[in-house]
């Protein structure tokens, strides 16, 4: 039979964003100690409280051990062999986007994120983070008219120290885990966002993270606060150059939703995944957590994880306020030698709290995909409800799917539902499509997109289209 498809035959994939921007970079010396932390803090002209916090985090970090419980495998990381700060050299802080280095603007253009005012994406405000610093934030003034603060984290520390002081570490304390402690000590930039009482943010806010410098880790921090009755939808995208080495990305994201506030947080993560033999790629070790502090508040995480050599992240919700809602919608794809251990934690503390978990794991090549989730119903969480659904899809027979759902219930009124499935893209399914005139590659893409539909419909429109395309590219070559 001519050209019969062989779904076990796996070839390479194309990574579109693998270029390097040639730009002069300023770094601090390699390695980590108190001196380095003081240097980073000084470069950012931080107030004293910030430096103190960093040092406390560092002192705690050195007492901690790297976690080994995740279902991922990698050689030991030498934390003294990483640059903790790298930034494009700037003569002075650019006051407007026109003053930003054209090389940088071009980089973002190549990535499909125009930053120049006349080319801005309508309806999306962008904070562009390049290695350790934010290089531009669009629509800032327009948002300020509504009282919305959207800026780089460094700027927030300087301009809004009270808000930062009040909420920084309130959801993810530096004692939380090894990578969160490391991040707290050395974080360099990220986005800050505050939506005032009763304001519905009229556009999507987004941060685009780009790693450029070699041997450098990116440690950014995002803090989003939605005050009473506020609403915000936030997007995050990530890419990095193709390199043989592994680079560490250890971010922390904290969300705080007050009474009746809603935060929707969407991620399309496309860090460099390594080549088809598993060389290189980003270690994406991230702590993301939201706190539904107020009554009737809602936090919704949607993630599409197609990149990184290793992904370790569990966007979680602490449902403190009565009637608050937490949601987690996830698509994680591992191809070639990628590994992902991802999922969520839903901690029900308030009464009538609800949570929904929909996780779709796709494994191809030698990819290993683990869902790990915890649903915890505390004593006082009267009438809590959870619905969880974890589906795994396997392409070929060298990959793996693993599911570890943990459930802890301490209140008898809780209602829990859990569904799980594992399926394999069958030759029969592909043949059925082919017999109707659709080629094998398009068939796989169609089947996978169908599998992910429940999650994609949670993404903002433009992102959903992007995610579908990304999934197609990531699976390129997974049918022979």
């Amino acid at each position, binding site marked *: 039979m001519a050209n*019969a498809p062989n779904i076990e035959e796996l070839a390479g994939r194309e990574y579109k964003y693998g270029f390097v921007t040639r730009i002069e970079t300023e770094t601090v010396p390699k390695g980590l100690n108190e001196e380095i932390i003081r240097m980073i803090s000084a470069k950012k002209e931080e107030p004293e409280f910030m430096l103190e916090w960093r040092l406390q985090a560092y002192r705690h970090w050195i007492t901690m051990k790297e976690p080994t419980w995740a279902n991922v495998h990698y050689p030991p990381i030498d934390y003294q062999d990483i640059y903790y700060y790298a930034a494009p050299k700037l003569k002075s802080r650019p006051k407007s986007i026109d003053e930003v280095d054209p090389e940088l603007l071009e980089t973002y253009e190549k990535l499909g994120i125009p930053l120049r005012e006349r080319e801005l994406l309508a309806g999306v405000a962008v904070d562009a983070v390049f290695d350790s610093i934010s290089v531009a934030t669009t629509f800032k003034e327009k948002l300020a008219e509504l009282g919305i603060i959207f800026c780089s984290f460094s700027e927030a520390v300087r301009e809004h120290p009270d808000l930062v002081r009040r909420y920084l570490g309130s959801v993810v304390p530096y004692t939380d885990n090894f990578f969160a402690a490391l991040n707290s000590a050395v974080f360099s930039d990220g986005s800050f966002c505050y939506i005032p009482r009763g304001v519905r943010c009229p556009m999507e806010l987004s941060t685009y993270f780009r790693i450029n410098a070699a041997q450098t880790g990116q440690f950014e921090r995002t803090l989003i606060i939605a005050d009473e009755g506020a609403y915000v939808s936030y997007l995050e995208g990530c890419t990095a150059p193709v390199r043989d080495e592994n680079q560490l990305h250890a971010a922390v994201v904290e969300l705080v939703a007050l009474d009746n506030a809603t935060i929707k947080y969407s991620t399309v993560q496309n860090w460099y995944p390594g080549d088809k033999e598993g060389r290189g790629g980003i270690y994406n070790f991230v702590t993301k957590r939201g706190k539904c502090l107020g009554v009737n508040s809602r936090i919704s995480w949607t993630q599409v994880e197609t990149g990184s050599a290793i992904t370790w992240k569990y966007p979680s919700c602490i449902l403190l306020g009565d009637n608050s809602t937490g949601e987690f919608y996830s698509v994680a794809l591992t191809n070639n030698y990628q590994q992902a251990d991802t999922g969520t934690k839903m901690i029900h503390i308030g009464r009538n709290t609800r949570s929904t978990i929909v996780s779709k794991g796709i494994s191809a090549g030698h990819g290993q995909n683990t869902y790990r989730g915890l649903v915890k119903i505390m004593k006082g969480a009267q009438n809590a409800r959870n619905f969880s659904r974890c589906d795994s899809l396997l392409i070929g027979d060298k990959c793996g799917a693993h599911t570890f759902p943990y459930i802890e219930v301490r209140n008898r009124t809780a209602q829990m539902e859990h569904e799980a499935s594992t399926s394999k893209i069958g030759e029969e399914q592909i043949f*059925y499509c082919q017999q*109707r005139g659709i080629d094998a590659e398009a068939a796989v893409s169609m089947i996978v997109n169908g599998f992910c539909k429940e999650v994609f419909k949670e993404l903002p429109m433009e992102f959903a289209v992007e995610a579908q395309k990304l999934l197609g590219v990531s699976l390129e070559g997974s049918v022979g």
Partner: protein
Amino acid sequence: MLKIKDLHAEVEGVEILHGIDLEVNAGEVHAIMGPNGSGKSTLAKVLAGREGYRVTAGAVLFEGRNLLDMPPEERAREGIFLGFQYPVEIPGVSNMYFLKTALNAIRRHRGLDELDAIDFLALARQKMKLVEMDENLLNRAVNEGFSGGEKKRSEIFQMAVLEPKLAILDETDSGLDIDALKIVAQGVNAMRRPDRAMILVTHYQRLLNYIVPDVVHVLLDGRIVKSGGKELALELEEKGYGWVPNGAEKRQPVAR
């Protein structure tokens, strides 16, 4: 339209078809009958290009071209349609999207403009009437949660939309109650045309009460042992497959 010459094929190293000769002309409806394991479904899958069904000898020409050289999707685009015995479920992919993608792939291949969603919907609505299908099915996922009857009707509906030159219907009658069978037969009959051929693969004569074939073939142990007019089907029904010469005594069970 279709010429099969001394076709031998094997599955997992076991030869199932031991030399099939068959010629189907435009406008004709052929029925291929035979007991379980005689190779009927294997023949259908070989013609459609299913992986794992290996042709070891012989030739198949479709409109003068070597069919065996073409990948399955090209055969489909050239106008071969296989109605599946067990239609496959594709969760999350709507019938509408699936069929529009398929139709446009076929239209592109033939140098025609692609249909947009609106034109496609109009076409689909019209074709659904053929098999009395509910319009809601268009928005449901391909075959997901369909009853046996709905799946078979949906196959005929797909055939009506894709307008093949040669339709091979593999056990389309299996699992259908009499009402559903009539509806399916009605749909098939409505599609008979001088420039279209059909091959009905079936175990029972029952279907042939509603779709009257021009030629009936009896397939036994991987060979066509007898061909005749529509009355052959009735005779078979009455006397059983053992009646056919070289039939029962040579039959051997074949795993399917």
